[in-house]
């Protein structure tokens, strides 16, 4: 796929253009050439795995084995993942002897030895976990995480938005843009860059970037041009 200058993360396009979350996790895996990707929406009231919303590239065999063996009750990635706030490398987990068979079994069923999990929390108090699994280890794995972690976090939130649309039929996250965000987006739509906008609104350029980033996130867009198009389409701005 052609890399465009204006799109910092072209991989987003293939994820975002997916019709379903199921397709999106496979698209993510293909884009970043990782072993597996999993989106897991946590449900606080119900702890039964089979009633949870999970979309994964793991083999059906591994998923059913995971369910049959009740690994959900001991899986530290999931257990800690819905409690933590910061993204974490699986090497940060404190592993007890009781969970080692789970990891050995996972590797016997097509999972790689390394993982990176991104906790997701939204304005409606929902929590989810997006997990990347690979066969890369050591320095290669650390380099991979460091070069992609910002993009992965953004992709995780995009996929969460898609899941919310899939479950609730619409984007119930559709938050109101603040007046500042609307001002910045309107000026951006008129061709001003963030330095121009900062001068006009008497803000720092960094703060303007913050408002634009926030507006982009709220509109579920991958870049500013797309956010502008979305805002115009939704009649939020009228540049």
């Amino acid at each position, binding site marked *: 796929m052609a890399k465009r200058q204006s799109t910092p993360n072209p991989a987003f396009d293939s994820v975002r253009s997916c019709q379903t979350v199921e397709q999106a996790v496979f698209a993510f895996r293909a884009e970043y050439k990782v072993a597996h990707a999993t989106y897991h929406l946590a449900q606080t009231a119900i702890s039964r795995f089979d009633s949870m919303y999970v979309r994964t590239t793991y083999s059906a065999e591994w998923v059913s084995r995971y369910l049959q063996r009740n690994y959900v009750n001991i899986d530290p990635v999931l257990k800690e993942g819905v409690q933590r706030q910061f993204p974490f*490398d699986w*090497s940060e987990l*404190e592993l007890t*002897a009781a969970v080692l068979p789970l990891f050995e079994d996972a590797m016997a069923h097509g999972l790689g030895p390394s993982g990176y999990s991104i906790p*997701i*929390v939204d304005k409606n108090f929902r929590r989810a976990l997006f997990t990347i699994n690979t066969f890369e280890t050591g320095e290669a*794995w650390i380099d991979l995480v460091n070069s992609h972690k910002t993009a992965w976090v*953004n992709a995780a939130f995009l996929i969460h938005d898609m899941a919310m649309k899939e479950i609730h039929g619409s984007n119930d996250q559709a938050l109101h843009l603040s007046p500042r965000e609307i001002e910045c987006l309107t000026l951006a739509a008129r061709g001003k860059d963030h330095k121009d906008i900062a001068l006009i609104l008497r803000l720092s350029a960094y*703060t303007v970037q913050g408002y634009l980033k926030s507006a982009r996130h*709220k509109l579920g867009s991958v870049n500013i041009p797309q956010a502008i198009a979305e805002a115009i389409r939704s009649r939020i701005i009228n540049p």
Partner: protein
Amino acid sequence: MFLTIQAHQYDTHRHLLDDMYRLRKRVFVDEAKWTIPHENGREIDRYDTLGPAYLVWCNPERTRLYGSLRLLPTTGPTLLYDTFRATFPGDACLAAPGIWEGTRLCIDKANLTADHPEILPVRAFGLLLLAATECALAHGIDTIITNYEPHLARIYARAGLPVDELGRADGYGRFPVCCGVFELSEAVAATMRRKLGIGLPLYRHAHLPSGYRAVSAPKTPETRKVAAHA
């Protein structure tokens, strides 16, 4: 030492957290006169029930607290979004991955004076801010939105971390309360280290270059700590 305490570690560090709630009561209720809920000498609000990450400054034995900061992602419910939205709509509504909220930043002057008389309060704020910056960068956070009393802006600037004020509101306490943004980057961290005369990172977020393959042959039968938070 500086460490982060996330929800899965609350129980392990419950004494430090309890000291933090008591410190916050002294700093924000007694001194700053903020009208915020408190009970039994502790300041705890609804955002403490949402599993925030705390950055804590304490002695190596983890028995004495020197300072703390509460961190929440702006993609979820946050204090500033909820409270400042009413006061000046539009200015405090930033919400995106990579933008986090830092609130209840405070220093225990009594404990510091007793254990480290050479560290004056201005430097103490600087050290805590540097650790917060390092912690944020380690976790992919490039912007922190925060609230503070106006006089602290000068202390932040002296530490090399200028705050960009978005707005301020009266009626919360002794002074107006400001809402502002910290811009975080490796360059900012380097400036702070230079200004504070600090050579090494204060906050260490260590990753071992191994997945769980290395762990499948544990050296100790019970628990093996795979990664250390220095």
